[in-house]
């Protein structure tokens, strides 16, 4: 067993190696559709921001669709997700409906948070999405708590914390990994290693070759997979989820992927070597998975085209619809600060 192989295996001798069933053709098509929907949404949002129709700080997930679609297919609808400001792909993959999702991003009353949270704070408990945080690394300890609740309630739910490589240098990451390991919590720590923490390259922000290497420090399994291959991500997450549900604790998964449009909309990506970016586009995951599905006759070219058109229309229609929706009114300013209505005004002395 070489070192890489070791990442793909549990560290403890008594752990079972979980066999993960390969998704059937329907599931493969569903995974592909999720990826296409994310890319279509991203295309539409970037176009709308460029056109001035929409104004927001936007963190494109383009290039990371496979990671989200892979883990989304490996989770139950009632499993928990905690994600980050670069979260559109995760949110769609976990099943957040498009209309309230886009409405929140555009600050509309019909949004997931009545337009009061914004794109960095999308929450949809019905799909298990409990927190989207704008603070790097902060979601991991919260995922531990969700997992602890699931453990105590015997619900069998698992909490997946999604974060970037940049988050693995903040204290919250280490505290959460350690707590999850000590308490054997049903958590999956999913690092979407897109090569950059904000504008700093991976090799400039940590000395470790692989984020997954850090799992050894917490005596939990660490796995590195091709994050641009949804089936590789699906297999790793499904194995981690099985282990978590069985009471065997957390797993750290590193999905190697790429951020095709930089950190935030408008990023000129001057810090990215041009050949690196060009290579990343040749490995762009949505097209790559399409080719694979066509080659293996899971879908025909026509079927793949139809999926793309369906998603593009859905996004365009939903965006048009959402653009026409109202913003939250002044009556929403002081609601939801606290459960008790009026308490907010009282506490400010007003």
């Amino acid at each position, binding site marked *: 067993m070489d070192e890489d192989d070791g990442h793909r295996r549990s560290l403890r001798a008594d752990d079972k190696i979980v066999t993960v069933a390969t998704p059937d053709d329907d599931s493969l098509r569903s995974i592909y559709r999720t990826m296409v929907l994310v890319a279509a949404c991203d295309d539409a949002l970037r176009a709308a921001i460029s056109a001035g129709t929409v104004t927001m700080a936007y963190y494109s997930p383009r290039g990371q669709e496979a990671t989200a679609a892979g883990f989304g297919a490996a989770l139950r609808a009632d499993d928990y997700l905690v994600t980050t400001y670069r979260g559109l792909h995760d949110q769609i993959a976990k099943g957040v409906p498009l209309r309230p999702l886009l409405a929140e991003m555009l600050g509309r009353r019909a949004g*997931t948070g*009545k337009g009061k949270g914004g794109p960095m704070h999308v929450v949809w408990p019905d799909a298990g999405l*409990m927190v989207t945080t704008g603070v790097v690394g902060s979601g991991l*300890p919260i995922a*531990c*708590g969700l997992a602890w*609740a699931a453990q105590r309630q015997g619900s069998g739910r698992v909490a997946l914390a999604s974060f970037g490589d940049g988050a693995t240098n903040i204290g919250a990451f280490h505290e959460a990994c350690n707590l999850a390991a000590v308490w054997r919590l049903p958590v999956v720590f999913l690092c979407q290693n897109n090569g950059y923490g904000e504008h700093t390259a991976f090799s400039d922000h940590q000395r470790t070759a692989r984020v997954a290497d850090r799992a050894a420090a917490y005596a939990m399994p660490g796995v590195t997979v091709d994050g641009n291959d949804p089936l590789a991500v699906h297999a790793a997450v499904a194995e981690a989820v099985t282990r978590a549900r069985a009471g065997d604790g957390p797993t750290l998964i590193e999905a190697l992927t790429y951020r095709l449009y930089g950190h935030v909309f408008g990023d000129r990506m001057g810090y990215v070597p041009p050949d690196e970016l060009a290579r990343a586009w040749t490995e762009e995951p949505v097209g790559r998975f399409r080719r694979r599905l066509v080659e293996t006759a899971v879908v025909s070219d026509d079927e793949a085209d139809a999926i793309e058109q369906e998603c593009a229309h859905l996004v365009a229609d939903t965006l048009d619809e959402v653009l026409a929706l109202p913003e939250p009114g002044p009556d929403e300013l002081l609601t939801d600060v606290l459960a008790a209505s009026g308490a*907010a005004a*009282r506490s400010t*002395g007003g």
Partner: protein
Amino acid sequence: MADAPAGTPADTGEVSVRAAITRALDEALGADERVVLLGEDIADPGGGVFGVTRGLSTKHGADRVRDTPISEQAIVGAAIGAALGGLRPVAELMFMDFLGLCLDQLANHAAKLRYMSGGRTAVPMVLRTAVGGGLQVGAQHSQMLEGWLTHVPGLNVVVPSSASDARRLLHACLADDDPCVFIEQVPLLSRRGPLDDTPLALGVADVARPGADVTVLTYGRQVHEALAAAESLAPSGPDVEVLDLRTLAPLDTEAVLDSVRRTRRCVVFHEAVVTGGFGAELAALVSESLFGRLLAPVLRVGAVSAPLPYAKGLERLALPGKERLVAAITQATSTAG
């Protein structure tokens, strides 16, 4: 029953603040399966650095009264997640000075998740934390930092002054659907008093001593110093009203204004550093609302603007006490009425 939580079995008469808090936690653990405790060394035999949770893990199980690594972000973050997941967690932050280690979780997450989700999620958690001012434990184990918290919308901030209030306010925190920070001043823990089973809501101040000439707005252990100051002035000096705020957020604004409207003079008295402290908020509230009615400027008495010194004499000088309060009351009442 050697392992029973202090204050639990058939106590009659007076109990310490420590025992009252233990009792509230014991009652909550007994009544509601969703209640869980987490923190550093809170399980037996230690039962927390000040013994507040002693006996509880033995009685209710170490899986419900759970020791954690020394990881304040993880403790508060896990409490938030547990609350989102349907539990009613009570986390212990060993000293309030360690707030900086978990303030992101508390201020950016616990306090905001309800608002940012448009009410879709709630964080019903309690963070208990101790303050060691007055015990010669130095500048990193002594700070009253309630002003950091009252500045953040979405948090309840509670500072009990007696055994009965501590028990009842902790129950109110546990019943509340929003995050509550419950501040336990260590010198107060051994103070004894009777218990009262009447429920007490958050946001209800208490007139600890009625008076006609000047209102002292205070909370926590300073209530007792204020009462002592009032008594010392009683024979010949002004008649001092002492208002125990009990909770700073929500603040019983009506009680504050009702009292000062009557007395027309006000002194704010707290253990925290004066500069930028919660007393400034109180002074502003009173001044903005009652400017024309006041007979004297609102005065503030609190700790000096220095890290709390270790040496006993210096610590005594740094913290506010009865003498400085008496001086401020005298000043506030020196102008003609």
